């Protein structure tokens, strides 16, 4: 920013001083002009008085004696003065001597008011009037002269004022304005906080300008110190902030703030990644936090709880369109208040899918047969109990099939354990293939399986299923390159609720039926037929 000339101090002080001086000079000139003019006029009057007084005695004698010569001498003497236009001496006895222009240029007589009269008395008898002197002052000349004198005086005054004004302007400019301007420019080009300082101006070391400079430098010192302190503090805050942001940005857990309306006001990249895995990149602004989870109601309750009390934690399942890619998160809710004292809920989400999977695997390892991945007998018994309870609750008809492989032992002995294992795995897969998802397939013993199906109310459909199982099982199995064989199966079946509602009874009955199949020549299925003996038990 540079100061425009018409705004500069030097011009403005100069102009103000000039205006002030001009006004004062004008007023003074006006006043003095009048004063001096009048003074000159009265001085001229006085001069005339004096003039008359010098010839008064002669005039008195002339009037006393009616002495024309003396009178002429006197009157002529008077008229010879510049300030007298015409003069006259008149005696009481009738003598009259006129000299000068007693008539105007146009022939009219002199205005009586402009004529001055001086009484003459006898030189010997002071109480006797002997005549008078008449004078016509040269008003024009007097006024001209008064004008000239007044004008000269005013001109002198103006010149004096002008000189003084210029001197004052120069002094102010030199002593005050210029150093101030210089100071302003120096200060303007000084950037606060830098090590720039104002240089001392020559000749101003011990005056106010010098003091201003040294005070300004002190101020600049303290500004520099303050700014450096602030800069250091800002850098510190920035680095701390950067670290905090790093924690926030790089955290493996998802962090988000949820406001009163359930919207996500702040989220870190990990959280964003969780969000986009569920809803894609669509409007995250309108997305509600609860929509991210499978159990919307539970999450809503948790948010409310965190708002009312303190921190809460819960394992939650993420909402997901695909059933098999479900993710589990451990969520931590805690209330925080922001600068506007608005209550927000801080949510920290850890992906615990891996852990959940691991737990599932452990559970699976406990429940499943490691070779065929079918339920083992221990898990199977529990599942069968559950399934029976369910069938009871839903009033369903179910079938329990006990399957014993034929010809397994010879294959195992002939081709070895590996071939035997291969046969078992293949049979397990085929059975699962033959059955529906909800049906239970359990490895009951070495080459013994148990199947539990709830096909409806038709016994016929149980037979169909059993036949289908037989068909699937008896297909040839290639357990090594170019080496294949087949196994058969004996299936004993008991029905719920026709044959009983106790699992042990049903298993027993199926076992009996299977035994009958074996007796009849294997590779067949048999539904339990209660004998009298059995009923009696």
């Amino acid at each position, binding site marked *: 920013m540079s100061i425009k000339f018409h705004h500069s101090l030097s011009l403005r002080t100069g102009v103000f001083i000039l205006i002030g001086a001009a006004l004062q000079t004008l007023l003074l000139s006006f006043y003095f002009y009048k004063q001096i003019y009048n003074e000159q006029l009265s001085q001229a009057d006085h001069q005339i008085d004096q003039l008359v007084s010098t010839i008064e005695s002669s005039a008195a*004698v002339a009037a006393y*004696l009616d002495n024309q010569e003396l009178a002429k001498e006197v009157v002529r003497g008077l008229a010879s003065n510049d300030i007298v236009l015409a003069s006259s001496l008149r005696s009481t006895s009738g003598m009259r001597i006129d000299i000068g222009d007693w008539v105007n240029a146009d022939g009219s007589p002199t205005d009586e008011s402009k004529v001055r009269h001086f009484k003459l008395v006898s*030189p010997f*008898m002071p109480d006797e009037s002997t005549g008078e002197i008449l004078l016509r002052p040269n008003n024009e000349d007097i006024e001209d002269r008064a004008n000239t004198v007044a004008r000269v005086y005013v001109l002198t005054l103006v010149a004096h004022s002008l000189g003084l004004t210029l001197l004052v302007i120069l002094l102010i400019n030199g002593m005050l304005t210029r150093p101030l301007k210089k100071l302003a420019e120096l200060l303007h080009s000084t950037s606060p906080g830098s090590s720039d300082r104002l240089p001392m101006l020559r000749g101003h070391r011990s005056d106010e300008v010098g003091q201003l400079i040294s005070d300004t430098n002190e101020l600049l010192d303290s500004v520099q110190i303050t700014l450096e302190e602030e800069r250091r503090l800002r850098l510190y805050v920035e680095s701390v902030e950067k670290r905090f942001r790093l924690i926030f940005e790089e955290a493996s857990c998802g962090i988000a703030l949820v406001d009163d309306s359930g919207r996500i006001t702040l989220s870190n990249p990990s959280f964003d990644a969780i969000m986009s895995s569920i809803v894609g990149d669509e409007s995250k602004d309108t997305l509600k936090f609860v929509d991210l989870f499978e159990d919307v109601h539970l999450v809503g309750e948790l948010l409310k709880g965190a708002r009312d009390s303190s921190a809460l934690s819960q394992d939650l399942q993420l909402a997901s369109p695909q059933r098999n890619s479900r993710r589990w998160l451990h969520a931590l809710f805690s209330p925080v208040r922001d600068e506007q004292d608005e209550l927000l809920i801080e949510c920290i989400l850890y992906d615990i899918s891996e852990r959940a999977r691991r737990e599932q695997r452990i559970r699976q390892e406990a429940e499943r047969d490691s070779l065929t991945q079918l339920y083992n007998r221990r898990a199977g018994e529990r599942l069968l109990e559950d399934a029976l309870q369910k069938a009871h609750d839903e009033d369903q008809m179910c079938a329990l099939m006990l399957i014993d492989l034929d010809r397994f032992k010879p294959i195992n002995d002939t081709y070895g354990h590996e071939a035997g294992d291969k046969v078992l795995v293949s049979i397990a897969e085929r059975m699962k293939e033959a059955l529906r998802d909800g049906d239970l397939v359990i490895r009951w013993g070495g080459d013994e399986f148990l199947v539990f199906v709830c096909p409806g109310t038709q016994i016929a459909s149980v037979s169909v299923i059993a036949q289908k199982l037989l068909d699937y099982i008896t297909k040839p199995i290639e357990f090594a390159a170019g080496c294949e064989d087949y196994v058969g199966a004996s299936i004993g079946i008991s029905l719920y609720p026709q044959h009983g509602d106790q699992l042990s009874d049903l298993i027993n009955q199926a076992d009996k039926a299977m035994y009958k199949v074996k007796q009849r020549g294997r590779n067949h299925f048999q539904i339990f037929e209660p004998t009298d003996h059995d009923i009696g038990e």
Partner: protein
Amino acid sequence: MNKLQIHLMIMLLGMMLGGPVGADIVVVVNEKNPVTGFSHRELVDLYMGRNLHFPDGSLVYRLDQEPDSVIRKDFYRSLVNKSIGQVSAYWAKLLFTGRAMPPQVLNDNNSVLSAVRNNKNAIGYIESINLDNSVKVVARVN
């Protein structure tokens, strides 16, 4: 010396030189002159040159005394309250006009007396102690 002291000294000097101070001065004319008397003003006008004629129209022949004489000094002091010097200046001022002439100066009282006795139109002033019957007193000064 202040003015008072000067006046006192002059008075003392006058007393020693000129006999009795304040002695009457009489204005006299020829016995045959018809004029009977003059007022103070008429006397002033006569002696200061304003009126140069007697009432009968004859020109006045005025007589004066010695410029340094006490009587002349006393006369003019009484007549117009002016000093001899002032009166001389008055006449000197008028001299150049050629129209006004000062009175004829004579040596003493006796010269004046004899001039008045011999000239019908003469007028003069003398100390009253010198007065005799050959002249007519027309005014008395002091």
